[in-house]
């Protein structure tokens, strides 16, 4: 037991000491180098090997590239399972993400060489195009993962999502009592602001952060600053608008961080289907 504890101690010390780099830099770009090596090797092979009658998916080298590509695609798509299955095994999701990103990019080279630049209106090209689309959406994912988290954190200002909504509820409670002395028209504006669903606006509003039908903004525009009550309500409405802006900011950044997955994953499933058709048809007509 003592020796087991000792190993875990060493492992823990290593973790406590150094493991603080992003998935892109993981292990000094290990997977980037592997992906580059794979790409370079396949390009060299393509250039040096004399494929007869012409470079094509059906030569022995073409089959080799196809097999590598297929294996990579199947393995890459397993990230979704890996992410949800933490145990058993001493793996790290960061390493998997790193490999996923770089090996995924190398598929552009492997896949393209596998086609032998023969593009047409058929199921084979469909699979190829789907693959390129999946990679393109993936690159978008990498870019947002690398650039957006800092603004997500800044927008949060140490508040949890639940706290943001609680803060809004607290403002609403104050607004409700402060609006009692207002006239009919102004009171209606405040009621409309209070009654509007915080999450109204749909996907487009969420992604752009623009809410043209925001009742709080409308109420602010419609407030006369004459009476003392109106001044108080205006101040509270401004607070409400700022709180909404924080919530909407969080929704927007989250949406930008997640929206590509809604394309990336269905396309991956379509790609696997097209790939299955491609492989079966190739062997059927062999």
């Amino acid at each position, binding site marked *: 037991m*003592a020796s087991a504890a000792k190993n875990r101690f060493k492992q823990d010390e290593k973790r*406590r*000491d150094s493991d603080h780099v992003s998935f892109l830099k993981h292990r000094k770009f290990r997977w980037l180098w592997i992906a580059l090596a794979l790409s370079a090797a396949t390009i060299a092979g393509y250039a040096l090997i004399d494929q007869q009658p012409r470079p094509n998916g059906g030569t022995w080298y073409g089959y080799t590239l196809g097999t590598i590509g297929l294996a990579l695609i199947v393995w890459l798509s397993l990230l979704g399972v890996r992410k949800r299955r933490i*145990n058993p095994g001493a793996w790290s999701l960061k390493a998997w993400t790193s490999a996923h990103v770089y090996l995924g990019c190398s598929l552009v080279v492997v896949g393209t060489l596998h086609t032998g630049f023969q593009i047409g209106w058929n199921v084979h090209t469909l699979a190829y195009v789907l693959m390129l689309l999946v990679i393109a959406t993936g690159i978008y994912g990498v870019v947002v993962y690398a650039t957006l*988290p800092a603004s997500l954190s800044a927008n949060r200002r140490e508040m949890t999502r639940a706290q943001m909504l609680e803060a809004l509820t607290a403002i609403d409670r104050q607004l409700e009592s402060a609006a009692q002395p207002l006239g009919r028209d102004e009171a209606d504006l405040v009621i409309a602001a209070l009654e509007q669903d915080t999450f109204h606006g749909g996907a487009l509003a969420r992604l752009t952060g623009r809410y043209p039908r925001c009742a709080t903004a409308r109420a602010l525009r419609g407030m006369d600053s004459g009476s003392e009550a109106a001044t108080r309500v205006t101040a509270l409405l401004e607070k409400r608008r700022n709180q909404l802006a924080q919530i909407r900011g969080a929704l927007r950044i989250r949406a930008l*961080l997640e929206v590509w997955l809604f394309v990336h994953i269905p396309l991956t499933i379509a790609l696997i289907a097209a790939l299955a058709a491609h492989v079966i048809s190739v062997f059927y007509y062999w």
Partner: protein
Amino acid sequence: MAETFQVAIVGSGPAGLSAAARAAMLGMSHVLLEKTDHLSDTIYKYQKGKHVMATPSNLVLRSDVDFDAGKREVILGLWDEQIAGHKVNVKYHAEVAKIEGEKGAFALTLRNGEVVQAAAVVLAIGTQGNPNKLRCPGADAPMIQYQLDDPGEYYDEHITVIGSGDAGIENALGLGADPAQRNVVTILNRSADFARAKAANVALLEEAEREGRLIVRRETEPAEVLNGELLLSTRDGQEAIRCDRIIARTGSQPPRGFVEGMGIEFSSPEPGAFPKLSPVFETTKPGIHVIGALAGYPLIKHCMNQGYDVIEFLNGNADLKPADEPILAEKFGALPGNRSVEEWLEVFGQNILILNDLSTLQLRELMLDSTCHAYDPGDVIFRRNDPGSSMFAIAEGSVAVEVNPADPSITVAIEQGSIFGEVGLISGRRRGATVRAAEPVIALELSRTAALKLLATSPGAARAVNAISVERQLLQMFGSGLTKADVAPLVASAEVMQARAGQVIVTEGADDKDVFIIRRGSMIVEKQIGDRPVFLSYLPAGSYFGEMAVIDGSLRTATVKAAIKSEVIRLPGEGFLALLDANPTLREKALADMAGRRATNAFIEGQKDSFSSAVDMYSQTAQFLVDNGIGEATDVLLIDEKLCIGCDNCEKACADSHDGLSRLDREAGKTYAHLHVPTSCRHCEHPHCMADCPPNAIKRGPDGEVFIDETCIGCGNCQRNCPYGVIRMDAKPPKKPSLLQWMLFGSGPGPGEAPYSWRKKKAEAEGAPKAKLAIKCDMCSGIDGGPACVRACPTGAAIRVAPDKFLTFTKLTEDVE
């Protein structure tokens, strides 16, 4: 004159109940005095439906009253029934105000003036104490209450809450929550702000005040309680307000003063000390006995057994063996020599110096929390860098300490009767050296709790451990080559100093010359550069500082202050110099260390001009981490929010690795410069959660993790004691359908913690509800690959670090993207 009872039992908790039932069974004339109108007030006040546990499970229950784990209501019902069945003479509303007299003739004066006569007294009053009464005329008025069970039961009343702590604020908020109850709620605060309460509660209170749901009166005290009115003393003079009910939440008075007032001595002035007791639970005041939590036994089974035992002793049964006899027999059974429990107790009690002062009762109790070991010569007792906070004492034989990690053949002996491992206990850090048995050894391993209890209750033991630990710390700090004789003068002049968080030990520019060793806690070193302090470095327990000024006679070059509550050993500079002069190798080592620190200082100062922003960043980030308690952590989860995409995969992985409940809250917590400290256990050097765990269920595991074992009784003390809010109380959820079933057929809630509604519905369908137990991070102990939160982070945002490794310039300013 009233009847004189053979025994008066004060307090009707488990201990008192059991004692009274035994007295009734034996036909002794007795009375059970209870201050409220029901039995067992502490358990009565548990929340409705709370599951009460019965640990330790290996202890047999010896009582005329039954007890087994179950719901509060069932247990209280059973006790009511059995106490009635045994025809116990219970006197309710009988709060004892004072006890006078001598053995054979005690007079117990009750709060209402009535006097109860008894030949002997058994105190079973627990440790809860009595709520502080208002210090103003009318403090006994019937409209004052000290507890609020259900704020929803009062209507149309003017209610004043007195007390500015969390209890008072929560009560006031509860009473003012529903306008339909039409209560006028006022809360009084003696000072201008609510400094003792949680920030969240204060915010809620201020919001309620703004909305007019309740009235907050600051700098106001009650002056007199009148009929239907309360006279207030405010900054601007006296004022009367209408008042139908007063809720007083001004803290409670521990029972110690009351007990000492009877002439009963405690074992030490420490707050954790218990009354001195004979083997038959008799105090230093003949005729008065103390049992239960007040005697140091917080668990229900212990209490009930003692109730039985104390009455048997009082009834003249001298042969009764304590109920723990079989447990001790089993403990000692593994040791060689075939000795009886009494013989072993004598061996341990007499041979081990720090146990010499203990009574048999204390010794037995200590043994229950300790482990006995027998080692053959050469056996490793513990290794360097093993985590461990237990302390060992040698009953027979001797051990060898490998003082030089590079050369195991260099050893120092520790002889029979002495102790070792105390550095781990005091500093909370890993073992400093490997210890082997030098000859056949019988050793006692005192758990951290048992050792701390011993130090708190036996001043002699505390002094001995202190002296030994200072000496060893000196020897360990200076490495090999020194002997006890070398450091003896320094040990004699050393002084242990307590430092509260933030306290300055050394001030930059001062010309004092002492040297300090950090014994527990940690320190930060700061230097004034330009107009603000710059963080230089973090010093964990075991490091020393202040030597530069001594060696080269210069002024202090930096300020050193406590990062958290700490203990330092102060060594007079002259003694330290004398030691260096006598040992040239030591001087060289000190000079080398000094050069290292000089280099750090120079580096930071040099950077200041060229990369001023990086230094600021480092200094402020380090200060932020220290402010957030990282200084007392051993392994803490941090999230780099420049990388965190908010996927919560860390929380999901945590839940899926541990019975379906997450032990961390990613979003909650503070952030500075995108470095986020989530709500998650830091595995403190001296865990606050361990402070008051009745079954001692919180332990430090083999990888340094602080974990809660299966003996948890769900009392919630650890949750309340944790300053970081990382412990949650929840029932183990039902099993989820597998990942494949979820992915293919959508069955179950999917990866991560299931929503509360799903857990509740499923648990109800499965039958008997499970007890809510304390759960916290165990650093994924026993899981291949280490902490799941870190492994499951797709971008590398989640890291777990140790402060001594992370609070450095390179780490805090490195570019991770």
